[in-house]
């Protein structure tokens, strides 16, 4: 065989092998929700201003402080109302805080999250709020799909956290190499995003703290702020508002959902049960006990030696029961189930003395006399079927409720005859 033959065959083989190793590639092109980014630098350079009032779109957490009513609009900011007269709340404006989903207030400092950061905002003059401190990267933000603006008719394109914070969405054509990665929006109906700090006015020493709802993930106790994100309970010393410092991080090994401080203890509602921490050392909560239950969405409120826990099914808690549980916490190290009551789809709840308000979605607002909590089902004072709400705050004979349609205030001086005082509806 001639050398030219050998060379020819060698080169031929080389060409064939080169082509042989090429891999078929598949590309998919489709219209999708594409995130709109704001760079980290631009986002952190933003000031918080009280801008002109705007329409309520996605009501989230509510908070009451003095005569002010704060309503979170998911991932965009906080509406501020003068609520001195609940029958006629006055819209003062909107605190523009991109990425905000939670809040708590101590003295005149509003603690609010903004995507990854924890902001301390001085609201002494509500018309001129000032950021006095920022704890960067206090939170993980992996919930871009919860940022409002998604078009339900399209899937979500890939989100790149390195590009910045997501401030909105636009419909654009995208091309991806197979296999496509769809991020489906977790379109919270508000109940999951609702964070009402518990009623904490029982302790006069904390009257400088506002009032929230039963699904709070932020709460303040004395000089400390507690935040709950997924499985991490973080404690901040906020005694110096301009120098907020992290004092404790606790992995709770469960998916945490709600916080409720009461009588020097912190009650953490998780999807697998209720955990009780002692705040004898507020800077470092100490675990006392865990009350286990079936996997469920789980807000909790405490009234005296009893804890009221609602278990419900939903998008995030697709397996579970729908019921209200009454738990004896007289021995904090050994919480014990006393009674459970079947409900339709119980969400948030609030207690004012011997009256329990339960947001039972699908049924309405239930009002119980809990003088004898073990037979509360026999003492249902009222059922308001036309009220669709997922959390509420009872305070001074005014029941502030939040639902998919907005924020509603009802007078309950006569609990059997709750009357609508005012409404702030979404537009």
């Amino acid at each position, binding site marked *: 065989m001639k050398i030219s033959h050998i060379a020819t065959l060698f*080169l031929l083989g080389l060409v064939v092998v080169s082509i042989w190793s*090429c891999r*078929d590639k598949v*590309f998919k092109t*489709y*219209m999708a929700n594409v995130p709109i980014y704001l760079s980290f630098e631009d986002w952190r350079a933003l000031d918080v201003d009280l801008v002109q009032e705007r329409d309520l779109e996605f009501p989230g957490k509510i908070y009451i402080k003095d005569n002010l009513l704060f309503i979170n609009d998911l991932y965009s900011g906080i509406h501020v109302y003068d609520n001195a007269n609940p029958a006629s709340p006055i819209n003062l404006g909107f605190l523009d805080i991109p990425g905000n989903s939670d809040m708590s207030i101590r003295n005149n400092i509003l603690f609010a999250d903004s995507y990854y950061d924890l902001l301390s905002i001085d609201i002494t003059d509500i018309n001129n709020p000032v950021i006095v401190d920022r704890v960067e990267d206090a939170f993980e933000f992996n919930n871009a799909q919860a940022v409002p603006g998604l078009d*339900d008719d399209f899937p979500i394109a890939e989100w790149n956290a390195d590009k910045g914070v997501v401030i909105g969405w636009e419909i654009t054509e995208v091309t991806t190499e197979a296999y496509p990665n769809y991020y489906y929006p977790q379109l919270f109906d508000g109940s999951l995003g609702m964070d009402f700090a518990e009623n904490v006015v029982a302790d006069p020493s904390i009257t400088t703290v506002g009032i929230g709802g039963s699904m709070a993930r932020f709460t303040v106790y004395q000089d400390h702020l507690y935040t709950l994100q997924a499985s991490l309970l973080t404690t901040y010393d906020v005694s110096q508002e301009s120098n907020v410092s992290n004092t404790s991080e606790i992995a709770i090994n469960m998916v945490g959902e709600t916080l409720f401080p009461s009588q020097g203890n912190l009650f953490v509602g998780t999807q697998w049960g209720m955990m009780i921490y002692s705040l004898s050392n507020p800077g470092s909560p100490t675990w006392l006990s865990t009350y286990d239950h079936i996997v469920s969405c789980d807000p909790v409120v405490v009234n005296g030696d009893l804890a009221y826990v609602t278990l419900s099914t939903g998008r995030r808690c697709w397996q579970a029961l729908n019921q209200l549980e009454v738990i004896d916490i007289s021995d904090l190290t050994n919480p014990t189930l006393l009674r459970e009551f079947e409900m339709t789809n119980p969400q948030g709840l609030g207690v004012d003395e011997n009256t329990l308000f339960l947001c039972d979605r699908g049924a309405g607002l239930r009002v119980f006399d809990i003088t004898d909590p073990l037979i509360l089902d026999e003492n249902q004072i009222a059922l308001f079927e036309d009220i669709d709400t997922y959390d509420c705050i009872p305070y001074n004979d005014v029941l502030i409720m939040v639902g998919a349609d907005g924020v509603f205030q009802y007078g309950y001086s006569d609990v059997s005859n709750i009357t609508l005082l005012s409404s702030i509806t979404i537009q």
Partner: protein
Amino acid sequence: MLALFACVEGLAQSVNTNPSQDKNRVDVVVLNDGSIVHGKLVEYIVGSHLIIINLEGERREFMGDQVAQVNSKAPMIINPKSEGFINTTDVGILMTSQPWQGAQGTFSFHSVNSWQFEKLGIVGLGTGVEFINSTMNIPVYADVKIPLTKGNVVPYFGAFGGHTFSTHSQEEPLYDIWYSYAPRTYKGGVMWGAQFGLMNYSKKRFGMTFSIGYQRHNMSTYYEEGFWNGIEWKTHEIQEEIKMHRVRIALGIVFR
């Protein structure tokens, strides 16, 4: 591409169709008029003409109908006409080591009607049947072949480009990557490639062909895919484009 060209050049040089390089050979040509010429054949195209250098060193040329018999150890130079219609039809296999949901080797049938220009090469239009991506497709393409030598065995380098049409109709179900029913609309797509091969003429108008080359397809389909938007199931349209690389090896016939 340089490697491909080098392969063809090497192959071309290995094919010796010039009988005059055999220095010791004496060929004998018997003409119809009874005369006999001794010498060395330079070129003999059966039915066309014969060129011989006689023992005196003279170049003699005779028309094909003057030649009665040729006694020569030189291979008959069929060497088809350098211009005219030419058709190549072959059957081959499209191969890959990493197919997208398809077989690693699939059937391919091509037929190219061309015109051979003496100086430009062979230019034509081709069509055929191919099985790609689990569907039957019809390619339509422009084809160019550049013969590298003249003679019985003609290596060539070729290139082609066109469009592949799918024969699958809309609504025909095909399991997608999620193994769910997904009615698709098959649009076919562009195709192009290059090849080198050999045409081996055993007759004046007929021969065999062998080729090996690269073929690229961009095939498009459209279908509806479901997704969960957190509240309910929705569907949206997807355009799927598959960029396929194939090695094509084919064997066929050439006639003119």
